[in-house]
């Protein structure tokens, strides 16, 4: 089931594998408001109104657990009771949206934030407590092992996760799907029956999603619902099952693994945060380490990371340089950064392979923000809209003080590096040719920028300059550059070694993250990548040996080359494969594990994998192993032998999320932030903790505006162009494939607006106007929601004022509003109006008009409130 994704158009090469699956009999379903090139390949297309995915998926939950198959085939209960937290008891203080008009217990309406305590597990008394006497990190972690969660394996107790889940989705029925999503009941049932038919011991099904799910104010919750569905169906950790999260660009997976994200350190460790108990390294470790999961090793990953950053300058005495590190103080992600920039709070900006002038929400707002900078550096292949913002249509360059530097970037074939793609696979690509003239790779730029900064800061005595001064920055290997024109290119090989990790003293590569230490003897740039380069001459990212199935010798899948995570779940509670057909990881009681016990005798009994995939479950841990508690229950010892999810504190797949999501433990339908439809499911209209910025220039549509902006709009991508068009609209043979911006609409809407195919139309929101050519097509359709007709249009967002294929910037009409967990913008659904004809004025002029109109009294109280969950950036 492909949902929240247009895989054939946006991931055409990966879609190859979907087509191969179809050839061997797999059923393909596409759930989407539009009929796209993916739908054309699907066996079933289920149309839904944009933003109503939780209703559809929630109704799947109810359908599945109410079905005859789920209740009569013992597989499902065995899988769910053993491998998920279905049996866990939740706090008696928990109250559900059905009790509270759509809110969960713990909501603070003033802070616009949830206190998650009432969502927590009921627990036994903890067997240990920290005394403050603990010396080593290991001791500190062991002292914090919590009490065991209480469970009812019969699933009868009303406080079990299972019963709470059942009650929560009881109202989500096929009828609700028809009324709220606008999807015919029969279509929904077809999808549900297909998923059920392809589950169980002998069959599995996969769910695929992309930014059609993430770019919503309830994006994380969409994905959570899919997770619940997959666990209920027994698809997690099994071949052909699971959830494939399609990332948005090549190697954006890599750019969150070794992050360009403000809130994350390598390997998904939270960044040091001034608002948390992160004062010292000890505080950080104690606060961040989850004692009863594989994360209990966090101290080793953190210290090794600090050692990689500061090398010899990182010592136990100075807490490995931790105290000198800057700490985050709020949400520093893209949207609030541009709000701050708009207010003059940011002096300089470096845009590397990024084009916010087109890709940013409320794009004219973002272009105006760029005009408040003192300086900006843009690195790209072409003079992007961001690089040229100061001479865009409707603007007099003389009015813009920003000094803009445009540096040419090298192309991917002009440097050596790795891509980490959507299935966590690292693949190296080698330099084929030197970049021309002064174009340079991103690593060349970053390396030399760091080198020059270090030189500039050399004499400083300010403590805040310690990190730059002491950065370990030895990445040149001149021998590698001998054959090339550019002699000062940093060595991808040296960088890879550091990423893999080595013992510091001798720089000997470590075989994997289990070799990392918390005493400064090892350095590792990214613990989840450790093992990619385990020994001399063994760069596994560069290996290219394929087989007919998992191909473990092709590239390296983090962590530890595990292709399917949590594959313990592909065997039953006793460790036997669920079926011969779906055999993957299972317990072989007679196998010599290769390990020896204390007396030197071989340990017999091990988990094995039929495809040569790496297993993330402890190899010699028996399927019937009992769980330990107290000081003995550190890490995976806390989990019993039937706990596949080694990274979760209780080892189980979470149907109910007691923590981790700030907007609720169970996904709940809220309407998109802007919607012409009053939430038919709960009184609470929108996500109560959605991130908003009620600043001038960023007005939202409230429910009172529904008549003014009655049309639902979605923005998306096409195969022919790349994101903001920076790589495609400049090439003639790509520009001519999709030369102009268009607006897809149904014949019904076209009739209503007296628009013919090919006519110019203008789409209008409170933020601005965008003009494009009408593409009237039967692939778009109106929806009937609770008896009312709701029209939907779709607009690709690739165009801008530069390049050979130029056009309006679609994002001129979207707003700065986002998901509260991860600050991703809600670009997939908002409201608008449409009229025949051209735009009334260029974007800068429209924006000035908007600012003039927006007196404080005109902005509603709701939109004046800034809520970025930490309330930092909002001075309106």
């Amino acid at each position, binding site marked *: 089931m492909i949902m929240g994704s247009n895989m054939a158009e946006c991931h055409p090469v990966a879609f*190859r594998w979907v087509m191969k699956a179809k050839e061997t009999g797999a059923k393909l379903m596409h759930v989407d408001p539009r009929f796209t*090139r993916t739908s*054309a390949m699907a066996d079933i297309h289920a149309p839904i109104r944009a933003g109503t995915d939780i209703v559809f998926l929630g109704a799947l939950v109810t359908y599945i657990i109410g079905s005859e198959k789920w209740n009569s085939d013992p597989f499902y209960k065995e899988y769910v009771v053993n491998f998920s937290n279905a049996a866990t008891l939740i706090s008696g203080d928990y109250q559900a949206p059905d009790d509270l008009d759509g809110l969960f217990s713990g909501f603070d309406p003033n802070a616009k934030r949830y206190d998650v305590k009432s969502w927590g597990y009921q627990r036994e008394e903890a067997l240990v407590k920290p005394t403050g006497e603990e010396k080593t990190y290991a001791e500190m972690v062991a002292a914090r092992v919590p009490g065991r969660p209480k469970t009812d394996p019969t699933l009868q107790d009303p406080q079990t996760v299972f019963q709470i889940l059942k009650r929560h989705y009881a109202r989500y029925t096929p009828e609700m799907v028809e009324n709220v999503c606008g999807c015919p009941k029969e279509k929904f049932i077809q999808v549900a029956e297909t998923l059920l038919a392809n589950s169980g011991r002998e069959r599995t099904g996969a769910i695929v999603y992309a930014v059609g799910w993430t770019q919503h104010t309830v994006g994380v919750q969409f994905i959570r619902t899919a997770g619940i569905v997959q666990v209920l169906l027994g698809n997690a950790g099994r071949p052909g099952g699971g959830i494939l999260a399609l990332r948005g660009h090549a190697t954006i997976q890599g750019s969150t693994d070794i992050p360009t994200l403000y809130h994350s350190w390598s390997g998904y460790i939270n960044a040091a945060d001034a608002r948390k108990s992160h004062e010292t390294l000890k505080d950080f470790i104690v606060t961040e380490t989850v004692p009863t999961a594989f994360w209990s090793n966090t101290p080793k990953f953190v210290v090794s990371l600090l050692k990689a950053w500061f090398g010899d300058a990182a010592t136990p005495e100075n807490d490995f340089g931790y105290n000198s590190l800057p700490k985050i103080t709020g949400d520093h992600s893209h949207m609030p950064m541009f709000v701050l920039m708009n207010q003059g709070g940011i002096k300089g900006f470096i845009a590397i392979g990024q084009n916010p002038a087109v890709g940013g929400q409320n794009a004219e707002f973002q272009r105006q923000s760029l005009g408040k900078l003192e300086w900006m550096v843009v690195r790209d292949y072409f003079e992007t809209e961001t690089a040229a913002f100061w001479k865009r249509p409707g603007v007099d360059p003389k009015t813009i003080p920003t000094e803009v530097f445009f540096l040419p970037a090298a192309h991917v074939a002009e440097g050596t590096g790795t891509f980490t793609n959507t299935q966590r696979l690292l693949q190296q690509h080698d330099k084929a040719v030197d970049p021309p003239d002064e174009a340079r790779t991103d690593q060349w730029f970053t390396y030399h920028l760091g080198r020059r900064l270090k030189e500039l800061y050399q004499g400083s005595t300010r403590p805040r300059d310690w990190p730059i001064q002491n950065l370990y920055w030895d990445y040149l290997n001149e021998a590698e550059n001998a054959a090339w024109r550019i002699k000062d290119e940093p060595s991808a090989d040296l960088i890879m070694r550091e990423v893999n990790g080595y013992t510091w003293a001798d720089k000997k590569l470590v075989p994997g993250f289990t070799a990392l230490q918390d005493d400064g003897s090892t350095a590792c740039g990214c613990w989840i990548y450790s093992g990619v380069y385990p020994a001399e001459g063994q760069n596994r990212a560069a290996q290219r040996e394929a087989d007919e199935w998992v191909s473990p010798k092709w590239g390296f899948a983090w962590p530890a080359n595990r292709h399917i995570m949590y594959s313990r779940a592909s065997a039953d509670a006793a460790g036997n494969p669920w079926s011969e057909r779906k055999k993957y990881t299972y317990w072989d009681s007679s196998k010599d594990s290769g390990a020896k016990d204390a007396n030197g005798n071989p340990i017999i009994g091990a988990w094995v994998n039929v495809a040569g995939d790496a297993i993330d479950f402890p190899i010699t841990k028996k399927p019937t192993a009992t769980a330990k508690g107290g000081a003995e229950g550190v890490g995976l010892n806390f989990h019993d032998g039937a706990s596949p999810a080694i990274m979760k504190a209780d080892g189980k797949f979470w149907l109910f999320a007691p923590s981790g999501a700030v907007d609720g433990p169970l996904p709940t339908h809220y309407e998109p932030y802007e919607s012409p439809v009053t939430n038919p499911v709960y009184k609470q209209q929108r996500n109560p903790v959605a991130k908003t910025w009620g600043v001038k220039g960023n007005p939202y549509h409230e429910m009172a505006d529904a008549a003014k902006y009655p049309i639902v709009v979605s923005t998306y991508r096409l195969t022919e162009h790349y994101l903001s068009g920076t790589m495609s609209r400049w090439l*003639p043979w790509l*520009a*001519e494939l999709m030369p102009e911006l268009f607006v897809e609409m149904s014949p019904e809407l076209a009739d209503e607006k007296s628009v013919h195919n090919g006519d110019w139309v203008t789409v209008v929101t409170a933020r601005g106007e965008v003009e494009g050519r009408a593409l009237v097509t039967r692939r*778009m359709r109106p929806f009937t929601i609770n008896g009312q007709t709701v029209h939907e249009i779709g607009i690709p967002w690739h165009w801008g004022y530069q390049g*050979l294929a130029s056009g309006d910037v679609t994002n001129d009409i979207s707003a700065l509003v986002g998901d509260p967990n991860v600050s991703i913008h809600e670009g997939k659904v908002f409201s608008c109006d449409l009229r025949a004809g051209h735009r009334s004025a260029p974007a800068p002029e429209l924006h000035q008009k908007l600012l003039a109109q927006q007196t404080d009294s005109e902005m509603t109280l709701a939109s004046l409130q800034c809520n970025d969950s930490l309330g930092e950036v909002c001075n309106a």
Partner: protein
Amino acid sequence: MPKGMFVDTSICIGCKACQVACKEWNALGEEPEHFDYAGGLPVKAKNFTGNSYDNTGALSATNWRHVRFIERGSSLEGNMAWYMMSDSCKHCAQAGCLEVCPTHALMRTDLGNVVVQQDVCNGCRACIGACPYGVISYNKQTGRVNKCTLCDDRIQMGLETACAKACPTDSIVFGEVDQLRVTARQRVQTLKQLGFAKAQLYGDTDVLGGLNVFYLLLDEPEVYGQPRNPQLPQRNLVPGSVWSIGAALLLGLSTLVAFRGRGVRNNGAAGKEA
């Protein structure tokens, strides 16, 4: 054994990688009509057609792959279909262009593909009318015609065509035509079993002696803009000539008969008066 391509439109996702790969490998450049130019360089693309996702429109001397998009049915009625077909030269076993070329610029190589030798073609354009598919086209800049060569420079070296290599779903497969036909026929059966009642091959041995680039379609050829039973104009040469000459003779004889009487009458009148 002729080489060719099997194009399975049932797994074509309309990505146009084939179009772009072809342009890049053959250094064909952009379509001049698609752009405004300044200083000899393209500055603005202006070829939006409003015809589904097809802004290419047609094959030309510098565009040798053209993905067609055919929308059928309605999303509102739940019977929407969107056919995608990557059109190109069919390298017909009975190639109309080849047959009429007066200079033998058009030739068939030992691999069965039909190519235009650019240094021989004189731009007479006789071939354009002879192609039932509108493939071969005139290039105003070079004064010659051109079309898909089946990547002659690649396949003569044992490589596959650029479009086949680029196609992400293996919708385009290059190989021995006889072997491709075996796979293709099996695929039609599979699709029929899956409920695609109208799945059919186009260009198996029945069309123009067989097309070396042949297709699997999910509906009738007309739906894809292909002639069901294409005829080569020159096949009509003998009957056409017989009819033309016969008609000319008949017309000539009728004229003679019609005006014969008038001449005699005039002469008679003149004789009587004199």
